[in-house]
């Protein structure tokens, strides 16, 4: 029987990157493997899926209806993966990215799971961008057929072009993979699903003249507001928007309430109101 794996997440989170690494690592370990990427017409955003099968025998057909390993990285993809969960499925999800309410809706379906706070681990110890590699590390511990060495080699091979420009990425991705694998080994399963609590980000900032509001559910982190600000009051904050990219934050001592950021925002994610 082939191991059937489905990985789902937001476009831009690195779903297809980890899927490619997994596929190549399986090939390197001498397995038969099939990989079917599936995403919408948009180049960024939208739910992105990857169907993967790993087997020691030939694989006749790349699609499947129930998966052995269901990996999900974002709240929006929870709805999509619902149909792929069977009683034997192991659900691996990012508990620092997915809202508790969304994952709890799948309570009836999920029998076995690993809740990985990958985004928190990544942003505290490494960099938010390697959250997907941590998830891959957790997945690698479940796939006993593929050696960990092959995973390590393939990560470096797949990211070789990026490592050439930024050499520090080599160490970063390597430790992310190891952290993920260690997390899986030390993981003690609990019986309730955990997730992100809603609306922890601050939305509104005020001074005596202006109220400045941001909308994390619309913001895509394009940084046009930062460039348009004539007094340089806006910078990137540490908190993230729905795409997992940084959100702008305003220094209300500098803000003059001109509304340039509001006008240039292509997503309607900033509102400036004069009092």
């Amino acid at each position, binding site marked *: 029987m082939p191991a059937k794996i489905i990985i789902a997440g937001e476009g831009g989170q690195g779903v297809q990157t980890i899927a490619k690494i997994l596929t190549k690592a399986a090939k390197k370990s001498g397995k038969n493997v099939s990989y079917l990427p599936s995403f919408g017409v948009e180049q960024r955003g939208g739910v992105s899926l990857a169907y993967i099968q790993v087997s020691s025998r030939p694989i006749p057909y790349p699609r499947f209806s129930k998966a052995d390993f269901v990996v999900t990285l974002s709240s929006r993809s929870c709805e999509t993966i619902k149909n792929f969960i069977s009683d034997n499925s192991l659900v691996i999800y990012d508990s620092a990215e997915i809202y508790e309410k969304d994952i709890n809706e799948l309570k009836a379906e999920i029998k076995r799971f690993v809740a990985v706070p990958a985004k928190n681990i990544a942003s505290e110890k490494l960099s938010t961008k390697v959250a997907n590699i941590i998830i891959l590390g957790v997945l690698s511990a479940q796939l006993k057929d593929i050696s960990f060495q092959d995973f390590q080699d393939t990560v470096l091979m797949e990211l070789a072009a990026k490592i050439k420009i930024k050499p520090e990425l080599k160490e970063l991705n390597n430790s992310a993979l190891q952290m993920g694998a260690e997390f899986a080994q030390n993981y003690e399963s609990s019986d309730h699903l955990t997730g992100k609590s809603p609306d922890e980000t601050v939305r509104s900032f005020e001074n005596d003249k202006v109220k400045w509001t941001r909308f994390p559910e619309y913001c895509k982190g394009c940084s046009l507001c930062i460039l348009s600000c004539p007094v340089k009051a806006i910078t990137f904050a540490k908190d993230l928007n729905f795409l997992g990219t940084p959100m702008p934050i305003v220094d209300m001592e500098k803000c003059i309430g001109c509304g340039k950021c509001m006008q*240039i925002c292509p997503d309607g994610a900033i509102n400036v109101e004069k009092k």
Partner: protein
Amino acid sequence: MAENNNFPKSWKKSSKPHKFCPGCGQSLALKNLGFVIDELQIADKTVYACDIGCSLLTWDMFEIDTIQTHHGRVVPTMVGFKLAKPSAITIAFMGDGGGYAIGAQHLINAAMRDDPITAILINNANYAMTGGQMAPTTLVGQKATTAPNGRDWQKVGKPIHGPEMLAEIAQEGSYIARTISTDIADCKTKIRKALQNQIDGRGFSFIEIISMCPVNWHTDALQSLDFSEKEMTKVYPLGEFKCPQKLA
């Protein structure tokens, strides 16, 4: 939740965040269009058609009747709609691929016949949805996936100047202009004029909006702004090429 004044009333709430990439100039142009529709209060009688390419991502953008067609056919579709129902306000929204390449004949003939519709064309200097191939609007020397050494004008010609071309053949009542998505005031004024021209029933209205494509240009936000505001406006001058006296 705080009220969002930066969200046009004619935009559909349930389909947001919209599907455009971060920093896309097209969504900025559509926000301006949404605000102009709000200001003119024409949402209930407007019909909106989007072409194929990145512009098809707007098929659920507005709380307005919407049609999606292929390769520049938005123009004849909207002409047909206008003929059948003259009280409707018809907006044909397309990209430079649909309007200037595959579907160019529709745009040219609509301008020649002086059909009373509003056509809005986004110029981002490449075929963005398919991955950044060379378009008729790609600048000379600009790199694209099908022109890895930059556009060679001796082999494939020079960039097309749509509004200038249409102004040559359009008739007196036409409104033809070019604007840029990041100049909000200018962009809104020209969209408003283009729609007002149709409401007044003078004739064909066309605006080209210069846009940004950070993903396919491989630029960050600052470089995208620089490229669209400095490089592109050098080749594609902003302005009104044909404007009825009553609108000016």
